Protein backbone atom coordinates (compact mmCIF):
# COMPACT_ATOMS: atom_id res chain seq x y z
CA UNK A 1 0.00 0.00 0.00
CA UNK A 2 1.18 3.48 -0.80
CA UNK A 3 4.88 3.31 -0.32
CA UNK A 4 7.41 0.63 -1.17
CA UNK A 5 8.89 -0.34 2.20
CA UNK A 6 12.22 -1.25 0.59
CA UNK A 7 12.92 2.43 0.07
CA UNK A 8 12.85 3.56 3.74
CA UNK A 9 14.57 0.34 4.84
CA UNK A 10 17.29 0.88 2.22
CA UNK A 11 17.70 4.52 3.14
CA UNK A 12 17.93 3.84 6.87
CA UNK A 13 20.53 1.09 6.59
CA UNK A 14 22.53 3.18 4.11
CA UNK A 15 22.63 6.05 6.60
CA UNK A 16 23.42 3.77 9.56
CA UNK A 17 26.03 1.98 7.43
CA UNK A 18 27.70 5.24 6.43
CA UNK A 19 27.73 6.43 10.05
CA UNK A 20 29.31 3.22 11.34
CA UNK A 21 31.78 2.88 8.45
CA UNK A 22 33.03 6.45 8.87
CA UNK A 23 33.16 6.11 12.65
CA UNK A 24 35.05 2.83 12.20
CA UNK A 25 37.57 4.46 9.83
CA UNK A 26 38.19 7.46 12.07
CA UNK A 27 38.51 5.32 15.20
CA UNK A 28 40.66 2.60 13.60
CA UNK A 29 43.83 3.78 15.37
CA UNK A 30 42.08 3.75 18.75
CA UNK A 31 43.20 0.33 19.99
CA UNK A 32 41.79 1.05 23.46
CA UNK A 33 38.27 1.22 21.99
CA UNK A 34 38.51 -2.14 20.21
CA UNK A 35 40.04 -4.08 23.08
CA UNK A 36 36.52 -5.13 24.01
CA UNK A 37 35.93 -6.66 20.56
CA UNK A 38 39.25 -8.59 20.41
CA UNK A 39 41.00 -5.97 18.25
CA UNK A 40 38.42 -6.35 15.50
CA UNK A 41 37.16 -3.05 14.12
CA UNK A 42 33.59 -4.27 14.47
CA UNK A 43 32.18 -0.83 13.68
CA UNK A 44 33.83 -0.82 10.25
CA UNK A 45 32.68 -4.35 9.36
CA UNK A 46 29.13 -3.92 10.62
CA UNK A 47 29.01 -0.55 8.85
CA UNK A 48 30.08 -2.02 5.50
CA UNK A 49 27.58 -4.87 5.89
CA UNK A 50 24.76 -2.47 6.72
CA UNK A 51 25.77 -0.15 3.87
CA UNK A 52 25.76 -2.97 1.30
CA UNK A 53 22.39 -4.23 2.54
CA UNK A 54 20.96 -0.70 2.44
CA UNK A 55 22.18 -0.07 -1.10
CA UNK A 56 20.79 -3.38 -2.34
CA UNK A 57 17.38 -2.54 -0.86
CA UNK A 58 17.51 0.97 -2.34
CA UNK A 59 18.40 -0.28 -5.81
CA UNK A 60 15.61 -2.87 -5.69
CA UNK A 61 13.05 -0.23 -4.81
CA UNK A 62 14.33 2.25 -7.42
CA UNK A 63 14.31 -0.43 -10.13
CA UNK A 64 10.68 -1.16 -9.32
CA UNK A 65 9.82 2.53 -9.40
CA UNK A 66 11.32 2.79 -12.90
CA UNK A 67 9.29 -0.22 -14.02
CA UNK A 68 6.08 1.26 -12.65
CA UNK A 69 6.74 4.59 -14.39
CA UNK A 70 7.38 2.81 -17.73
CA UNK A 71 4.19 0.78 -17.38
CA UNK A 72 2.23 3.94 -16.72
CA UNK A 73 3.72 5.55 -19.86
CA UNK A 74 2.59 2.60 -21.98
CA UNK A 75 -0.94 2.92 -20.65
Amino acid at each position, binding site marked *: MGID*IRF*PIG*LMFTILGLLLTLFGLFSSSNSELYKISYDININLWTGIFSLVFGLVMLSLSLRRKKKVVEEEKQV
Partner: protein
Amino acid sequence: MEQSFNLGWIDYTIMLVYFVFVIGIGWALKRYMKSATAFLEAGRSLPAWVTGLAFISANLGALEVIGMAASGAKYGMMTIHFYLIGAIPGMVFLGLFMMPFYYGSKARSVPEYLKLRFDEKTRAFNAFAFAIMTVLASGISMYALALLAQVLLPFDFTVTIIGINITEFDFYLIFAALIVLIYTYLGGLTSAIYNEVLQFFLIVIGFLPLVFLALKHVGGWEGMKANLDVGMLHSWQNTGSPDANTMGVEWFGVVAGLGFVLAFGYWCTNFLVVQRAMAAGSMTAARKTPMIGALPKMFIPFIVVIPGMIAIALLNDPSIDFTLPVKGDSFDYDKVIPTLLATHFPTGVLGLGVTALLASFMSGMAGNVSAFNTVWTYDIYQSYLVPDKSDNHYLRVGRLTTVFGVIVSILAAYIAKSFNNVMDFLQLIFAFINAPLFATFLLGMFTRRTTGHGAFYGLIAGTIAAAIHHGLTAPVGLHSQIKGGWMGTIVHHYHSEMAQNFWTAIYAFAACFVVTVLISLLTRKLKTNEQLKGLVYSLTPRLVDKEMVWYKRPATLAILVSIMAIAFTILFW
Protein backbone atom coordinates in the same frame (compact mmCIF):
# COMPACT_ATOMS: atom_id res chain seq x y z
CA MET B 1 27.96 -7.14 37.68
CA GLU B 2 25.10 -4.78 36.96
CA GLN B 3 26.62 -2.31 34.59
CA SER B 4 25.09 0.43 32.56
CA PHE B 5 26.18 0.96 29.00
CA ASN B 6 28.88 3.39 28.13
CA LEU B 7 27.13 5.18 25.30
CA GLY B 8 28.68 7.91 23.16
CA TRP B 9 27.32 10.45 20.69
CA ILE B 10 27.42 7.93 17.82
CA ASP B 11 25.15 5.55 19.75
CA TYR B 12 22.57 8.24 20.43
CA THR B 13 22.74 9.30 16.77
CA ILE B 14 21.90 5.74 15.67
CA MET B 15 18.93 5.64 18.04
CA LEU B 16 17.76 8.98 16.77
CA VAL B 17 17.98 7.86 13.11
CA TYR B 18 15.86 4.84 14.01
CA PHE B 19 13.20 6.92 15.76
CA VAL B 20 13.06 9.34 12.81
CA PHE B 21 12.49 6.49 10.34
CA VAL B 22 9.90 4.70 12.46
CA ILE B 23 7.81 7.85 12.78
CA GLY B 24 8.58 8.87 9.19
CA ILE B 25 7.04 5.65 7.87
CA GLY B 26 3.88 6.37 9.83
CA TRP B 27 3.86 9.91 8.50
CA ALA B 28 4.32 8.80 4.87
CA LEU B 29 1.39 6.39 5.20
CA LYS B 30 -0.94 8.91 6.77
CA ARG B 31 -2.46 10.08 3.48
CA TYR B 32 -3.45 6.54 2.47
CA MET B 33 -5.55 6.01 5.61
CA LYS B 34 -8.88 6.98 4.09
CA SER B 35 -11.08 4.06 5.14
CA ALA B 36 -11.47 1.72 8.08
CA THR B 37 -10.29 -1.11 5.82
CA ALA B 38 -7.07 0.75 5.00
CA PHE B 39 -6.42 1.55 8.66
CA LEU B 40 -7.43 -1.72 10.31
CA GLU B 41 -6.73 -4.30 7.59
CA ALA B 42 -3.90 -2.62 5.63
CA GLY B 43 -6.33 -2.57 2.68
CA ARG B 44 -5.53 -6.27 2.09
CA SER B 45 -2.87 -5.20 -0.35
CA LEU B 46 0.61 -6.11 0.93
CA PRO B 47 3.12 -8.39 -0.82
CA ALA B 48 3.79 -11.82 0.72
CA TRP B 49 7.42 -11.15 1.69
CA VAL B 50 6.34 -8.09 3.72
CA THR B 51 3.52 -9.87 5.56
CA GLY B 52 5.74 -12.95 5.96
CA LEU B 53 8.50 -11.03 7.73
CA ALA B 54 5.95 -9.10 9.79
CA PHE B 55 4.39 -12.45 10.70
CA ILE B 56 7.48 -13.50 12.64
CA SER B 57 8.60 -10.00 13.61
CA ALA B 58 5.34 -9.28 15.48
CA ASN B 59 6.31 -12.27 17.59
CA LEU B 60 9.98 -11.22 17.87
CA GLY B 61 9.25 -8.97 20.83
CA ALA B 62 10.43 -8.93 24.40
CA LEU B 63 9.24 -12.46 24.96
CA GLU B 64 11.45 -13.76 22.22
CA VAL B 65 14.74 -11.90 22.42
CA ILE B 66 15.15 -11.71 26.20
CA GLY B 67 13.10 -14.80 27.06
CA MET B 68 14.62 -17.14 24.49
CA ALA B 69 18.18 -16.08 25.32
CA ALA B 70 17.35 -16.77 28.98
CA SER B 71 15.88 -20.10 27.99
CA GLY B 72 18.98 -20.90 25.90
CA ALA B 73 21.10 -20.23 28.97
CA LYS B 74 18.87 -22.31 31.24
CA TYR B 75 17.95 -25.24 28.99
CA GLY B 76 20.44 -25.10 26.12
CA MET B 77 19.62 -26.61 22.75
CA MET B 78 16.19 -27.84 23.88
CA THR B 79 15.04 -24.25 23.45
CA ILE B 80 15.00 -24.73 19.67
CA HIS B 81 11.84 -26.80 20.15
CA PHE B 82 10.10 -23.42 20.22
CA TYR B 83 11.42 -22.71 16.70
CA LEU B 84 11.13 -26.09 15.04
CA ILE B 85 8.39 -28.39 16.32
CA GLY B 86 6.80 -25.53 18.27
CA ALA B 87 6.42 -23.28 15.23
CA ILE B 88 7.04 -24.76 11.78
CA PRO B 89 4.28 -27.41 11.60
CA GLY B 90 1.75 -24.88 12.92
CA MET B 91 2.84 -22.25 10.39
CA VAL B 92 2.72 -24.69 7.45
CA PHE B 93 -0.71 -25.93 8.54
CA LEU B 94 -2.01 -22.37 8.75
CA GLY B 95 -0.73 -21.55 5.27
CA LEU B 96 -1.87 -24.70 3.53
CA PHE B 97 -5.15 -25.52 5.23
CA MET B 98 -6.51 -22.64 7.29
CA MET B 99 -5.72 -19.46 5.36
CA PRO B 100 -8.19 -20.36 2.58
CA PHE B 101 -11.00 -20.04 5.15
CA TYR B 102 -9.71 -17.00 6.99
CA TYR B 103 -8.90 -15.11 3.81
CA GLY B 104 -11.63 -16.51 1.58
CA SER B 105 -14.47 -15.93 4.04
CA LYS B 106 -13.80 -12.16 4.03
CA ALA B 107 -13.85 -12.19 7.82
CA ARG B 108 -11.95 -9.17 9.07
CA SER B 109 -10.63 -10.85 12.21
CA VAL B 110 -10.38 -14.24 13.87
CA PRO B 111 -13.32 -13.53 16.22
CA GLU B 112 -15.36 -12.50 13.18
CA TYR B 113 -14.62 -15.85 11.55
CA LEU B 114 -15.99 -17.49 14.69
CA LYS B 115 -19.17 -15.46 14.35
CA LEU B 116 -19.61 -16.45 10.70
CA ARG B 117 -18.89 -20.10 11.41
CA PHE B 118 -20.61 -20.46 14.79
CA ASP B 119 -22.52 -17.73 16.56
CA GLU B 120 -22.41 -14.43 18.40
CA LYS B 121 -21.50 -15.73 21.86
CA THR B 122 -18.49 -17.70 20.61
CA ARG B 123 -17.22 -14.56 18.91
CA ALA B 124 -17.83 -12.46 22.01
CA PHE B 125 -15.93 -14.90 24.24
CA ASN B 126 -12.96 -14.92 21.88
CA ALA B 127 -13.00 -11.18 21.18
CA PHE B 128 -13.03 -10.15 24.84
CA ALA B 129 -10.43 -12.73 25.85
CA PHE B 130 -8.19 -11.67 22.99
CA ALA B 131 -8.58 -7.96 23.67
CA ILE B 132 -7.62 -8.37 27.31
CA MET B 133 -4.74 -10.66 26.48
CA THR B 134 -3.19 -8.39 23.85
CA VAL B 135 -3.36 -5.30 26.03
CA LEU B 136 -1.73 -7.27 28.82
CA ALA B 137 1.00 -8.55 26.50
CA SER B 138 1.62 -5.06 25.22
CA GLY B 139 1.83 -3.76 28.78
CA ILE B 140 4.33 -6.46 29.71
CA SER B 141 6.48 -5.48 26.71
CA MET B 142 6.44 -1.86 27.83
CA TYR B 143 7.27 -2.73 31.41
CA ALA B 144 10.17 -4.95 30.35
CA LEU B 145 11.52 -2.26 28.05
CA ALA B 146 11.40 0.42 30.73
CA LEU B 147 13.01 -1.86 33.29
CA LEU B 148 15.83 -2.79 30.95
CA ALA B 149 16.40 0.82 29.90
CA GLN B 150 16.53 1.82 33.55
CA VAL B 151 19.31 -0.66 34.25
CA LEU B 152 21.27 -0.05 31.07
CA LEU B 153 21.03 3.63 30.22
CA PRO B 154 23.21 5.91 32.28
CA PHE B 155 20.46 8.31 33.34
CA ASP B 156 19.03 8.59 36.80
CA PHE B 157 16.59 11.31 37.70
CA THR B 158 13.34 12.14 39.46
CA VAL B 159 11.24 15.14 38.56
CA THR B 160 8.08 16.18 40.31
CA ILE B 161 5.24 17.37 38.11
CA ILE B 162 1.98 18.39 39.81
CA GLY B 163 2.84 16.37 42.87
CA ILE B 164 3.71 13.17 40.95
CA ASN B 165 7.27 11.88 41.06
CA ILE B 166 8.46 10.83 37.62
CA THR B 167 11.61 8.72 37.53
CA GLU B 168 13.61 7.66 34.49
CA PHE B 169 11.64 4.37 34.55
CA ASP B 170 8.36 6.20 33.99
CA PHE B 171 9.98 8.39 31.38
CA TYR B 172 11.24 5.43 29.29
CA LEU B 173 7.85 3.74 29.56
CA ILE B 174 5.92 6.76 28.41
CA PHE B 175 8.47 7.61 25.72
CA ALA B 176 8.35 4.13 24.14
CA ALA B 177 4.56 4.09 24.36
CA LEU B 178 4.42 7.47 22.70
CA ILE B 179 6.58 6.42 19.72
CA VAL B 180 4.44 3.32 19.16
CA LEU B 181 1.31 5.41 19.55
CA ILE B 182 2.44 7.96 16.97
CA TYR B 183 3.32 5.52 14.24
CA THR B 184 0.29 3.26 14.68
CA TYR B 185 -2.03 6.26 15.02
CA LEU B 186 -0.75 7.72 11.75
CA GLY B 187 -0.44 4.65 9.57
CA GLY B 188 -2.57 1.96 11.26
CA LEU B 189 -1.87 -1.70 10.60
CA THR B 190 0.22 -0.95 7.49
CA SER B 191 2.54 1.20 9.59
CA ALA B 192 2.83 -1.51 12.25
CA ILE B 193 3.59 -4.13 9.60
CA TYR B 194 6.10 -1.96 7.70
CA ASN B 195 7.89 -1.11 10.91
CA GLU B 196 7.95 -4.77 11.88
CA VAL B 197 9.82 -5.51 8.64
CA LEU B 198 12.29 -2.70 9.35
CA GLN B 199 12.70 -3.95 12.92
CA PHE B 200 13.29 -7.48 11.72
CA PHE B 201 16.30 -6.42 9.65
CA LEU B 202 17.54 -4.18 12.44
CA ILE B 203 17.44 -7.04 14.94
CA VAL B 204 19.32 -9.33 12.56
CA ILE B 205 21.99 -6.77 11.61
CA GLY B 206 22.36 -5.57 15.22
CA PHE B 207 22.70 -9.04 16.75
CA LEU B 208 24.80 -10.86 14.15
CA PRO B 209 28.01 -9.04 15.15
CA LEU B 210 27.26 -9.92 18.77
CA VAL B 211 27.00 -13.63 18.01
CA PHE B 212 30.18 -13.38 15.93
CA LEU B 213 32.18 -11.68 18.70
CA ALA B 214 30.81 -13.85 21.50
CA LEU B 215 31.59 -17.00 19.52
CA LYS B 216 35.11 -15.72 18.90
CA HIS B 217 35.46 -15.04 22.62
CA VAL B 218 34.50 -18.58 23.61
CA GLY B 219 36.71 -20.20 20.96
CA GLY B 220 34.22 -20.77 18.16
CA TRP B 221 31.50 -23.39 17.91
CA GLU B 222 33.82 -26.12 19.21
CA GLY B 223 34.88 -23.90 22.09
CA MET B 224 31.26 -23.39 23.05
CA LYS B 225 30.54 -27.12 22.93
CA ALA B 226 33.63 -27.94 24.98
CA ASN B 227 32.45 -25.68 27.81
CA LEU B 228 28.85 -26.88 28.04
CA ASP B 229 27.34 -29.96 29.68
CA VAL B 230 26.60 -32.49 27.01
CA GLY B 231 22.90 -32.30 27.97
CA MET B 232 22.81 -28.67 26.83
CA LEU B 233 23.76 -29.64 23.29
CA HIS B 234 20.86 -31.85 22.33
CA SER B 235 17.22 -31.15 21.63
CA TRP B 236 15.68 -34.63 21.42
CA GLN B 237 18.32 -37.10 22.53
CA ASN B 238 17.49 -36.92 26.25
CA THR B 239 13.72 -36.66 26.07
CA GLY B 240 13.12 -40.35 26.82
CA SER B 241 12.25 -39.45 30.41
CA PRO B 242 11.69 -36.11 32.12
CA ASP B 243 14.56 -36.62 34.62
CA ALA B 244 17.07 -37.01 31.82
CA ASN B 245 16.97 -33.53 30.30
CA THR B 246 17.40 -29.90 31.23
CA MET B 247 13.78 -28.92 30.60
CA GLY B 248 12.18 -31.66 32.69
CA VAL B 249 9.83 -32.82 29.92
CA GLU B 250 9.51 -36.09 28.04
CA TRP B 251 9.09 -36.37 24.27
CA PHE B 252 5.33 -36.85 24.43
CA GLY B 253 4.85 -33.59 26.33
CA VAL B 254 6.99 -31.79 23.74
CA VAL B 255 5.23 -33.27 20.73
CA ALA B 256 1.64 -33.14 21.99
CA GLY B 257 1.78 -30.19 24.38
CA LEU B 258 4.12 -27.79 22.64
CA GLY B 259 4.27 -29.10 19.07
CA PHE B 260 0.57 -29.75 18.64
CA VAL B 261 -1.67 -27.94 21.12
CA LEU B 262 0.31 -24.83 22.06
CA ALA B 263 1.97 -24.25 18.70
CA PHE B 264 -1.11 -24.80 16.55
CA GLY B 265 -3.15 -22.81 19.05
CA TYR B 266 -0.76 -19.89 18.85
CA TRP B 267 0.25 -19.81 15.19
CA CYS B 268 -3.11 -20.80 13.69
CA THR B 269 -5.65 -18.98 15.84
CA ASN B 270 -3.91 -16.02 17.48
CA PHE B 271 -5.14 -12.95 15.67
CA LEU B 272 -1.88 -11.09 16.37
CA VAL B 273 -0.08 -13.27 13.82
CA VAL B 274 -3.02 -14.33 11.62
CA GLN B 275 -3.80 -10.63 11.04
CA ARG B 276 -0.48 -10.25 9.21
CA ALA B 277 -1.42 -12.99 6.77
CA MET B 278 -4.91 -11.52 6.33
CA ALA B 279 -3.33 -8.21 5.25
CA ALA B 280 -1.76 -9.87 2.20
CA GLY B 281 -2.79 -8.79 -1.30
CA SER B 282 -4.11 -12.08 -2.68
CA MET B 283 -5.15 -15.56 -1.57
CA THR B 284 -1.82 -17.00 -2.73
CA ALA B 285 0.13 -14.28 -0.90
CA ALA B 286 -1.95 -14.88 2.25
CA ARG B 287 -1.25 -18.62 2.11
CA LYS B 288 2.45 -18.09 1.53
CA THR B 289 2.78 -15.55 4.38
CA PRO B 290 3.30 -17.97 7.29
CA MET B 291 5.58 -20.18 5.24
CA ILE B 292 7.75 -17.28 4.06
CA GLY B 293 7.93 -16.33 7.74
CA ALA B 294 8.93 -19.90 8.61
CA LEU B 295 12.15 -19.68 6.57
CA PRO B 296 13.86 -16.95 8.65
CA LYS B 297 12.13 -18.29 11.80
CA MET B 298 14.38 -21.35 11.70
CA PHE B 299 17.49 -19.15 11.78
CA ILE B 300 16.39 -16.89 14.66
CA PRO B 301 17.76 -19.33 17.28
CA PHE B 302 21.24 -18.38 16.03
CA ILE B 303 20.77 -14.82 17.20
CA VAL B 304 18.75 -15.44 20.38
CA VAL B 305 19.22 -19.00 21.71
CA ILE B 306 22.89 -19.46 20.82
CA PRO B 307 23.93 -16.24 22.66
CA GLY B 308 22.32 -17.67 25.80
CA MET B 309 24.30 -20.88 25.42
CA ILE B 310 27.52 -18.96 24.70
CA ALA B 311 27.01 -16.95 27.90
CA ILE B 312 26.94 -20.17 29.94
CA ALA B 313 29.97 -21.53 28.09
CA LEU B 314 31.82 -18.28 28.89
CA LEU B 315 30.85 -18.67 32.56
CA ASN B 316 32.06 -22.28 32.60
CA ASP B 317 35.44 -21.58 31.01
CA PRO B 318 37.84 -20.97 33.93
CA SER B 319 40.29 -19.08 31.71
CA ILE B 320 37.69 -16.45 30.77
CA ASP B 321 36.67 -13.68 33.12
CA PHE B 322 32.94 -13.39 32.50
CA THR B 323 29.97 -13.31 34.82
CA LEU B 324 26.23 -12.72 34.77
CA PRO B 325 24.28 -10.61 37.27
CA VAL B 326 22.81 -12.62 40.12
CA LYS B 327 19.16 -12.65 41.14
CA GLY B 328 18.28 -14.47 44.36
CA ASP B 329 20.26 -17.71 44.46
CA SER B 330 20.79 -18.12 40.71
CA PHE B 331 21.98 -16.11 37.74
CA ASP B 332 19.60 -13.56 36.28
CA TYR B 333 19.21 -15.20 32.89
CA ASP B 334 17.09 -12.36 31.56
CA LYS B 335 20.26 -10.26 31.56
CA VAL B 336 22.14 -12.51 29.13
CA ILE B 337 21.72 -10.30 26.05
CA PRO B 338 22.39 -6.96 27.81
CA THR B 339 25.47 -8.41 29.53
CA LEU B 340 26.86 -9.80 26.28
CA LEU B 341 26.24 -6.43 24.60
CA ALA B 342 28.03 -4.55 27.38
CA THR B 343 31.02 -6.88 27.38
CA HIS B 344 31.54 -7.26 23.61
CA PHE B 345 30.41 -4.13 21.83
CA PRO B 346 32.43 -0.91 21.62
CA THR B 347 30.60 2.38 21.21
CA GLY B 348 29.16 2.48 17.70
CA VAL B 349 27.80 -1.04 17.25
CA LEU B 350 26.68 -0.77 20.87
CA GLY B 351 24.21 1.88 19.74
CA LEU B 352 23.06 -0.45 16.98
CA GLY B 353 22.63 -3.32 19.43
CA VAL B 354 20.66 -1.21 21.92
CA THR B 355 18.52 0.14 19.07
CA ALA B 356 17.85 -3.42 17.89
CA LEU B 357 16.76 -4.31 21.42
CA LEU B 358 14.45 -1.29 21.57
CA ALA B 359 13.12 -2.22 18.13
CA SER B 360 12.26 -5.72 19.30
CA PHE B 361 10.26 -4.36 22.22
CA MET B 362 8.47 -1.84 20.05
CA SER B 363 7.52 -4.35 17.36
CA GLY B 364 6.02 -6.53 20.06
CA MET B 365 4.05 -3.61 21.44
CA ALA B 366 2.88 -2.28 18.08
CA GLY B 367 1.83 -5.74 16.95
CA ASN B 368 -0.40 -6.09 19.97
CA VAL B 369 -1.80 -2.58 19.70
CA SER B 370 -2.71 -2.99 16.01
CA ALA B 371 -4.40 -6.35 16.62
CA PHE B 372 -6.26 -4.92 19.60
CA ASN B 373 -7.45 -2.03 17.41
CA THR B 374 -9.09 -4.27 14.85
CA VAL B 375 -10.76 -6.57 17.37
CA TRP B 376 -11.99 -3.71 19.51
CA THR B 377 -13.34 -1.67 16.58
CA TYR B 378 -14.96 -4.47 14.58
CA ASP B 379 -15.79 -7.17 17.11
CA ILE B 380 -16.68 -5.16 20.17
CA TYR B 381 -17.52 -1.58 19.20
CA GLN B 382 -19.22 -2.19 15.84
CA SER B 383 -20.88 -5.43 16.96
CA TYR B 384 -22.18 -4.56 20.39
CA LEU B 385 -21.83 -0.88 21.11
CA VAL B 386 -22.49 1.27 18.05
CA PRO B 387 -23.43 -0.71 14.91
CA ASP B 388 -24.49 0.62 11.48
CA LYS B 389 -22.43 3.79 11.25
CA SER B 390 -20.48 5.06 8.25
CA ASP B 391 -17.06 3.69 7.35
CA ASN B 392 -15.61 7.08 8.25
CA HIS B 393 -17.01 6.73 11.76
CA TYR B 394 -15.21 3.40 12.28
CA LEU B 395 -12.00 4.87 10.86
CA ARG B 396 -12.13 7.57 13.53
CA VAL B 397 -12.96 4.99 16.21
CA GLY B 398 -10.02 2.88 15.03
CA ARG B 399 -7.73 5.87 15.47
CA LEU B 400 -9.10 6.66 18.93
CA THR B 401 -8.78 3.01 19.90
CA THR B 402 -5.04 3.28 19.27
CA VAL B 403 -4.85 5.96 21.94
CA PHE B 404 -7.14 4.01 24.27
CA GLY B 405 -5.17 0.77 23.70
CA VAL B 406 -1.86 2.44 24.48
CA ILE B 407 -3.22 4.04 27.66
CA VAL B 408 -4.62 0.73 28.89
CA SER B 409 -1.28 -0.93 28.01
CA ILE B 410 0.54 1.61 30.16
CA LEU B 411 -1.78 0.74 33.05
CA ALA B 412 -1.13 -2.95 32.36
CA ALA B 413 2.60 -2.23 32.45
CA TYR B 414 2.31 -0.95 36.00
CA ILE B 415 0.21 -3.97 36.94
CA ALA B 416 2.84 -6.23 35.38
CA LYS B 417 5.35 -4.81 37.83
CA SER B 418 3.96 -7.20 40.45
CA PHE B 419 4.71 -10.33 38.38
CA ASN B 420 8.36 -11.23 38.10
CA ASN B 421 8.50 -14.04 35.60
CA VAL B 422 7.09 -12.54 32.44
CA MET B 423 7.70 -15.53 30.21
CA ASP B 424 5.95 -18.10 32.40
CA PHE B 425 3.03 -15.82 33.07
CA LEU B 426 2.44 -15.29 29.34
CA GLN B 427 2.75 -19.01 28.67
CA LEU B 428 0.15 -19.61 31.35
CA ILE B 429 -2.33 -17.26 29.72
CA PHE B 430 -1.73 -18.82 26.31
CA ALA B 431 -2.34 -22.23 27.82
CA PHE B 432 -5.63 -21.22 29.46
CA ILE B 433 -7.17 -19.38 26.53
CA ASN B 434 -5.40 -20.46 23.36
CA ALA B 435 -4.99 -24.16 23.96
CA PRO B 436 -8.68 -25.09 23.82
CA LEU B 437 -9.18 -22.68 20.89
CA PHE B 438 -7.40 -24.89 18.39
CA ALA B 439 -9.81 -27.76 19.09
CA THR B 440 -12.68 -25.40 18.24
CA PHE B 441 -11.11 -24.35 14.94
CA LEU B 442 -10.15 -27.87 13.99
CA LEU B 443 -13.69 -29.13 14.56
CA GLY B 444 -15.28 -26.03 13.06
CA MET B 445 -13.20 -25.87 9.89
CA PHE B 446 -13.15 -29.55 9.09
CA THR B 447 -16.58 -30.84 10.18
CA ARG B 448 -19.86 -29.18 9.28
CA ARG B 449 -21.74 -30.80 12.16
CA THR B 450 -20.04 -28.72 14.89
CA THR B 451 -22.58 -26.24 16.27
CA GLY B 452 -22.34 -22.84 17.91
CA HIS B 453 -23.41 -24.18 21.30
CA GLY B 454 -20.87 -26.97 20.99
CA ALA B 455 -18.07 -24.52 20.19
CA PHE B 456 -18.97 -22.10 22.96
CA TYR B 457 -19.37 -24.60 25.79
CA GLY B 458 -16.35 -26.50 24.51
CA LEU B 459 -14.21 -23.38 24.85
CA ILE B 460 -15.51 -22.73 28.36
CA ALA B 461 -14.86 -26.35 29.32
CA GLY B 462 -11.34 -26.20 27.90
CA THR B 463 -10.47 -23.03 29.78
CA ILE B 464 -11.89 -24.46 33.03
CA ALA B 465 -10.01 -27.72 32.49
CA ALA B 466 -6.80 -25.72 32.08
CA ALA B 467 -7.43 -23.81 35.28
CA ILE B 468 -8.30 -26.95 37.27
CA HIS B 469 -5.25 -28.83 35.99
CA HIS B 470 -3.08 -25.88 36.90
CA GLY B 471 -4.71 -25.70 40.32
CA LEU B 472 -4.21 -29.37 41.13
CA THR B 473 -0.63 -29.80 39.94
CA ALA B 474 2.65 -28.07 40.67
CA PRO B 475 6.20 -28.04 39.43
CA VAL B 476 8.79 -29.33 41.90
CA GLY B 477 10.04 -26.65 44.27
CA LEU B 478 6.84 -24.64 44.07
CA HIS B 479 7.14 -21.26 45.72
CA SER B 480 4.24 -19.17 44.49
CA GLN B 481 0.65 -19.95 43.66
CA ILE B 482 0.88 -18.38 40.23
CA LYS B 483 2.90 -21.48 39.32
CA GLY B 484 0.08 -23.85 40.24
CA GLY B 485 -1.33 -25.82 43.12
CA TRP B 486 -3.67 -23.05 44.17
CA MET B 487 -6.56 -25.43 44.82
CA GLY B 488 -4.90 -26.66 48.00
CA THR B 489 -4.37 -30.33 47.21
CA ILE B 490 -1.66 -31.23 44.74
CA VAL B 491 -2.26 -34.48 42.91
CA HIS B 492 0.83 -34.46 40.72
CA HIS B 493 4.24 -32.85 40.70
CA TYR B 494 5.88 -32.11 37.36
CA HIS B 495 9.62 -31.93 36.87
CA SER B 496 9.42 -28.34 35.66
CA GLU B 497 7.02 -25.49 34.99
CA MET B 498 7.52 -26.06 31.29
CA ALA B 499 6.27 -29.64 31.61
CA GLN B 500 3.30 -28.46 33.68
CA ASN B 501 2.40 -25.86 31.03
CA PHE B 502 2.59 -28.39 28.20
CA TRP B 503 0.29 -30.76 30.08
CA THR B 504 -2.16 -28.00 31.02
CA ALA B 505 -2.48 -27.37 27.29
CA ILE B 506 -3.02 -31.05 26.52
CA TYR B 507 -5.84 -31.32 29.09
CA ALA B 508 -7.46 -28.09 27.92
CA PHE B 509 -7.44 -29.25 24.32
CA ALA B 510 -8.84 -32.67 25.18
CA ALA B 511 -11.64 -31.23 27.35
CA CYS B 512 -12.62 -28.71 24.67
CA PHE B 513 -12.56 -31.35 21.93
CA VAL B 514 -14.72 -33.84 23.84
CA VAL B 515 -17.25 -31.29 25.11
CA THR B 516 -17.57 -29.62 21.67
CA VAL B 517 -18.28 -32.97 20.01
CA LEU B 518 -20.79 -34.07 22.68
CA ILE B 519 -22.75 -30.81 22.75
CA SER B 520 -22.71 -30.55 18.95
CA LEU B 521 -24.30 -33.98 18.72
CA LEU B 522 -26.96 -32.98 21.27
CA THR B 523 -27.83 -29.61 19.68
CA ARG B 524 -29.36 -28.71 16.34
CA LYS B 525 -27.22 -27.35 13.54
CA LEU B 526 -28.50 -23.80 13.01
CA LYS B 527 -26.46 -22.77 9.98
CA THR B 528 -27.39 -24.11 6.56
CA ASN B 529 -24.81 -25.63 4.25
CA GLU B 530 -25.16 -22.56 2.05
CA GLN B 531 -24.21 -20.28 4.97
CA LEU B 532 -21.20 -22.44 5.76
CA LYS B 533 -19.78 -22.28 2.25
CA GLY B 534 -16.26 -20.85 2.37
CA LEU B 535 -16.07 -21.55 6.11
CA VAL B 536 -15.94 -25.34 6.26
CA TYR B 537 -13.58 -27.60 4.34
CA SER B 538 -16.09 -30.01 2.82
CA LEU B 539 -18.42 -27.24 1.62
CA THR B 540 -15.76 -25.04 0.01
CA PRO B 541 -14.60 -25.46 -3.59
CA ARG B 542 -10.95 -26.59 -3.65
CA LEU B 543 -8.41 -23.98 -4.59
CA VAL B 544 -6.75 -24.80 -7.86
CA ASP B 545 -3.04 -24.01 -7.93
CA LYS B 546 -2.45 -25.90 -11.17
CA GLU B 547 -2.24 -22.80 -13.38
CA MET B 548 0.68 -21.49 -11.33
CA VAL B 549 4.23 -22.50 -12.23
CA TRP B 550 5.10 -25.34 -9.84
CA TYR B 551 7.75 -23.40 -7.92
CA LYS B 552 5.34 -20.58 -7.15
CA ARG B 553 2.71 -22.81 -5.54
CA PRO B 554 2.18 -22.69 -1.77
CA ALA B 555 2.56 -26.48 -1.57
CA THR B 556 6.09 -26.29 -3.00
CA LEU B 557 7.04 -23.75 -0.38
CA ALA B 558 5.53 -25.99 2.31
CA ILE B 559 7.70 -28.89 1.18
CA LEU B 560 10.84 -26.73 1.19
CA VAL B 561 10.08 -25.44 4.70
CA SER B 562 9.42 -28.95 5.98
CA ILE B 563 12.66 -30.33 4.54
CA MET B 564 14.65 -27.53 6.16
CA ALA B 565 12.94 -28.03 9.52
CA ILE B 566 13.68 -31.76 9.43
CA ALA B 567 17.31 -31.08 8.49
CA PHE B 568 17.71 -28.69 11.46
CA THR B 569 16.04 -31.20 13.78
CA ILE B 570 18.48 -33.93 12.77
CA LEU B 571 21.45 -31.56 12.93
CA PHE B 572 20.70 -30.57 16.53
CA TRP B 573 19.22 -33.90 17.64
